[in-house]
């Protein structure tokens, strides 16, 4: 009896204390859905670079899910050292609801704390049988558009705002026309998934719909995974500049004693190596050098920012996605 108990105690206690004493530094990066592949590469590269610089091992774990859901997990106590989410609003929410980082977090790193950008493009069936080239084609009768619910998906919010913004620009800023456009667009949406990955599955694997509004990187990923013989990417002439930001969660990192390595991790994203990995994973890098390595990957298009058209996330969120906002109106108008 006694030896067994001792053994048990040893089994439980020893590895725990050993890990605490000598194990690698651990970081948790809480991110959104489509970045899984990107951060797998980044984490390995960063561990090598950190080891070369300081001699210490660092092990970065990742957690993925819908951006809003991930933010809520962090608010509810998920121990994230860094967050890399789909939109600034979600990190603002962490600052606002849990006070885990300062309100001015977005000015701490270059380019609005956004090391890479993306945009919203169309994924269509091979050969583009419905001739979908521009946003107006999405509202034609008989076109079935797949996009997730903007209330739950960060990517879908970018898609919605891209559609709204380009309609505003085409109609000289006429808000009424933009609302008409967006209402007609969502009339063509037969199913609202809750996240970007779900919508991609609906479109690519279940074969539902003529066009998927998608993150540019997610569209290329779907193309590579599911076959260039089945799908193709259409880049519209105008779209939104999607800026998915990154931030250190100050209070959690301070508690873990990881503030320094967390900051270095995010800064690594801005290095040439980090930028190149971003470009390889179809995120538009900030560095011109990284772009030049992939000359045909990122077609030129007119891009507008959320600040310029909507006056920032807070305003866009309040006006469009809160209860009783424009998005709710689209669906109550049809009744």
């Amino acid at each position, binding site marked *: 009896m006694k030896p067994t108990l001792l053994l048990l105690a040893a089994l439980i206690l020893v590895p725990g204390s050993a890990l605490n004493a000598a194990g690698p530094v651990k970081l948790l990066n809480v991110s959104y859905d489509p970045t899984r592949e990107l951060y797998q590469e980044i984490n390995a590269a960063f561990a090598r670079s950190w080891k070369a610089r300081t001699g210490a091992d660092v092990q970065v774990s990742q957690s993925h899910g*819908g951006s809003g*859901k991930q933010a*809520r997990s962090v608010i509810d106590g998920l121990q994230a050292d860094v967050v890399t989410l789909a939109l600034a609003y979600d990190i603002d929410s962490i600052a606002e609801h849990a006070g885990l980082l300062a309100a001015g977090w977005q000015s701490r790193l270059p380019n609005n704390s956004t090391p890479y950008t993306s945009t919203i493009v169309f994924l269509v069936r091979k050969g583009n049988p419905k001739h979908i080239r521009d946003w107006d084609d999405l509202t034609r009768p008989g076109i079935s558009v797949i996009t997730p*619910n903007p209330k739950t998906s960060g990517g879908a919010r970018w898609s919605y705002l891209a559609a709204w913004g380009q309609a505003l620009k085409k109609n000289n800023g006429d808000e009424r026309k933009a609302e008409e456009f967006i209402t007609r667009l969502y009339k063509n949406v*037969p*199913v609202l998934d*809750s996240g970007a990955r779900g919508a991609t599955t609906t479109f690519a694997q279940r074969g*539902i719909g003529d066009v998927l509004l998608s993150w540019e990187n997610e569209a290329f990923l779907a193309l590579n995974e599911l076959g260039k013989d089945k799908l193709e990417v259409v880049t519209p002439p105008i779209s939104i500049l999607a800026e998915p930001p990154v931030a250190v969660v100050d209070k959690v990192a301070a508690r873990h004693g990881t503030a320094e390595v967390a900051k270095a991790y995010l800064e690594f994203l801005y290095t040439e190596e980090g930028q190149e990995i971003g470009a390889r994973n179809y995120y538009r890098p900030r560095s011109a050098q990284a772009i030049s390595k992939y000359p045909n990957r990122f077609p030129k298009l007119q891009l507008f920012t959320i600040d310029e058209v909507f006056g920032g996330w807070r305003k866009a969120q309040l006006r469009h996605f809160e209860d009783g906002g424009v998005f709710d109106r689209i669906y109550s108008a049809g*009744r």
Partner: protein
Amino acid sequence: MRLQTNFRRPSVLPGFWPAFSYTVLYLSLIVLIPLSAVFLKAASSSWGHLWKTISAPNVLAAYRLSFGASLAAGLVSVVTGFLVAWVLARYRFPGKALADALVDLPFALPTAVAGIALTSLYTENGWVGRYLAALGIKVAFTPLGVVVALTFIGLPFVVRSVQPVLADADRELEEAARSLGATGWQVFCRVIFPIVRPALLTGFALAFARGLGEYGSVIFISGNLPMKTEIAPLLIVTKLEQYDYAGATAIASVMLVASFILLLGVNVLQRRTRRFMETE
């Protein structure tokens, strides 16, 4: 006084008070405390906000769909579940053990898997959906799809409630009825049905309650269109993702109260039918 004597029937388990206290403690820890947390959280917000949340048109539409579809699926499960239970309890056939095990599969399967499988079957280019589409029937991304998913989830509840009762039912009663000149239909209505009625009610209540709370399988097949195919649990999740905890718990509280009243009603009904049978 009478209550006391009823409580204190002799039993093999160690006495009334330990068992009763344990029951109260357990129910409090596992059921009551988490549920009261829901109400407390909802109460943290103003009445105006709560009322605005639960009376919004899309929330009302979601309640209608959730309760309507669960009710429909519960009723379908009662009929089909009774048939399955009948076959399993009354006949011997090759592969019976397999069929018996299959019934429990919806219990064990992660509901998301069920939802994805049903969706690919019933979309317009799915195996089943394409034939239904030819007949003009759309299942996936309509309220009908919600009912289909809930029927799948609800079936084992009815089968497992009814099957043991049918297996235990005294067949001599049926033979006696037959020998007294009853037709097959009369035997079913006057003899078999009264015996299984309490079990059918239990099965219905379980299937219905499960249907109300079901999330995983439904969100795949429903399409989640506001005002049309959004179920109430989805709206709860949506509110949570918008950091509206009070709103989410408000919707949940209404569902809890409504389903508690419904289940209580079913329980009372069940007790009545049982008493009716005992006195008869």
